[in-house]
């Protein structure tokens, strides 16, 4: 029993970290643009495909396949996805900044369809699932007879590192300060002239590359990737960000951990829990929003009258 619990605790932390990274992107973008970028999950899940394609291209050009090619392709994918985010912002998302919330929502849902369909058409046999390798293999050490994989450690470590970097960036660099100012008070930010392209570019670059890391880790965790993984990734990341409180970085992390926790708990303790896990996750989302309409760590905004 202890072993099972321990094993599930490791799964929880791993999955929770990945969800937290996804939720961070939603929260960051919402904070700055006041727009839900619903296709953020789809953007994130392009990363595994870009990495696979990159590795194959490198192998084809430089000869035999090698782990180094994959590593290189993975890093390239993170940057490429960051750029995709910036382009999508400029082409589509930014235009919905002042539109009613639901317009932006529908537009980005449609954008998600476009991204998924593009993956399906551009990647060879894009409709099929594609195996994705464990980026880091092997067992690091045992805790009470339960093996802790290097992968789990890497996920947690990478998440902590990214969160730390993000925090430092937002608090120490001038552009980070401007992003925070913009997300704290949009009116003031606009009066101060902050709402220029650089803030948006920086936000989307960071959010999308962090999303790409999450997408790569998720594919690696699942061992497989598919063109429509982005739907669930988006729904879960969005839910985690909302549960935690949109615009709140700690909230996004807490939200990711809570959702992963519910999933793992359902799988462990409820008979047939695996098939009902999404029911539990979304029941929780509903419950949180009934009792805390602004999320757990979100500020309740008193409307100015």
């Amino acid at each position: 029993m202890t072993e099972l619990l321990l094993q599930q605790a490791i799964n929880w932390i791993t999955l929770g970290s990945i969800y937290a990274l996804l939720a961070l992107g939603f929260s960051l973008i919402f904070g700055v643009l006041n727009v839900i970028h619903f296709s953020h999950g789809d953007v994130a899940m392009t990363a595994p495909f870009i990495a696979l394609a990159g590795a194959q291209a490198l192998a084809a050009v430089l000869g035999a396949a090698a782990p180094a090619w994959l590593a290189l392709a993975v890093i390239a994918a993170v940057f490429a996805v960051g750029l995709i985010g910036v382009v999508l912002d400029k082409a589509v998302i930014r235009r919905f900044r002042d539109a009613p919330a639901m317009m932006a929502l529908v537009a980005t849902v449609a954008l998600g369809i476009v991204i998924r369909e593009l993956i399906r058409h551009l990647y060879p046999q894009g409709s099929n699932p594609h195996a994705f390798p464990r980026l880091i293999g092997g067992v690091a050490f045992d805790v009470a007879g339960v093996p802790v994989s290097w992968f789990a450690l890497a996920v947690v470590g990478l998440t902590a590192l990214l969160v730390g970097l993000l925090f430092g960036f937002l608090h120490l660099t001038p552009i980070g300060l401007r992003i925070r100012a913009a997300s704290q008070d949009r009116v003031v930010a606009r009066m101060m002239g902050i709402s220029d392209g650089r803030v948006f570019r920086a936000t989307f670059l960071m959010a999308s590359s962090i999303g790409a890391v999450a997408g790569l880790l998720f594919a690696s965790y699942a061992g497989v990737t598919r063109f429509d993984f982005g739907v669930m990734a988006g729904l879960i990341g969005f839910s985690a960000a909302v549960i935690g409180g949109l615009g709140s970085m700690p909230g996004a992390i807490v939200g990711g951990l809570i959702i992963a926790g519910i999933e793992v708990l359902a799988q462990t303790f409820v008979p047939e829990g695996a098939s009902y896990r999404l029911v539990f996750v979304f029941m929780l989302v509903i419950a949180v929003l009934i009792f805390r309409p602004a999320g757990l760590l979100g500020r309740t905004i008193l409307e100015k009258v």
Partner: protein
Amino acid sequence: MNHPASRVVPRAAAAAATTILLQISGAAFVYAILSAEEGWQVVALLGLLGFGFYLLERLPWINDVVVALLARVPVVTTATAAVIVLGFPFLVGSNTYILHLLIVAQLYAVLALALNFQLGSANIPNFATGASYGIGAYVSALLAVNFNVSFWLTLPVAALAATLFGFVIGIPCMRTRDTYLALVTIAFAVVVHQLLNNFEWTGGPNGLVGIPAPTLFGHSFADPIEVFGWTLPSQANFYYLAAAVVIIAVITARRLHESHIGLAWNALRADEMAAKAQGINVAWYKVLAFAVDAFLAAFAGTIYAFYVSYISPDNFTFLVSVTIMTMVIVGGMDNIFGVIVGAFLLTILPEKLRAFSDYRLLIFGVIVIGFLMIRPEGLFPQRLRHYGVER
């Protein structure tokens, strides 16, 4: 202000003639696009449609004049519309594919009208219309398959069940707004879909099969209709059934729109706080919008289930809700005619893009984004209400 419609005060006879002509050309266009087989025909007809919308955009008074004309001779307008709707299957004859498209388009029109109460009138982003649709379909199908209940009895039961569901979604939505509210409805949609997918008694992912065709006065809807020596394929039964529900939906929508309830929805759309200050119980009106939406969606769901006789959870996903939402936005929010046009357009268009069948979803997505960026108010924007002589 000089109301443009008042510039034209047509005589009744002229108005009647124009009205009939307009409606017949509209019907002829729908028939032409439905029966177009060649790629170039489709492109030409779409070009014509695009030109029409371009004209409307450049010369908005056309819209006002047409509305004034139709309102001038309401009896003629209604009678012509009735003749066209009744006669269309005779024109189509044995082409069951066209009839099928028309049935689906009409069901979507009902769903879009249902969603319009929230999205259009009250600006509530509801992503759970697909779920209400599914609940309607499943409740009636389960009753028919397991207990042999007649279609006509399952219809009100399904509507009641879905309305109850509407109230349930509506309650958490009293406290949440915008994005948060959207997520609550998405969450409900996912939960319903997942439950349908997992319960044994709903048939799991395989769904329910063998839903019997309805009968009316001994006539089974699986049989062809024979009138005055004409024989219409069995689909015509469902065509007329769907048409009846569209009419019910239009009457419901009009009566609500032209009452203080429609005004209250519009008020809370414009400014929730100011609406409260006029004594509007905002929470109740939001819940009411959910209930009406679910009620009508259940009608569409029931007819769908009995028409195709086979339903599965994948007919009622989150993406179905997005499709319905797109129809409302493209057609024109809070404009009953526009919403119906949106439903027909977005049902028929993908079918006509068969030439690019593999890229249909991609094109669909691009069109939606383009629409939201270029013409967010839709093809037929909402109109100000006019009272008394102006009508």
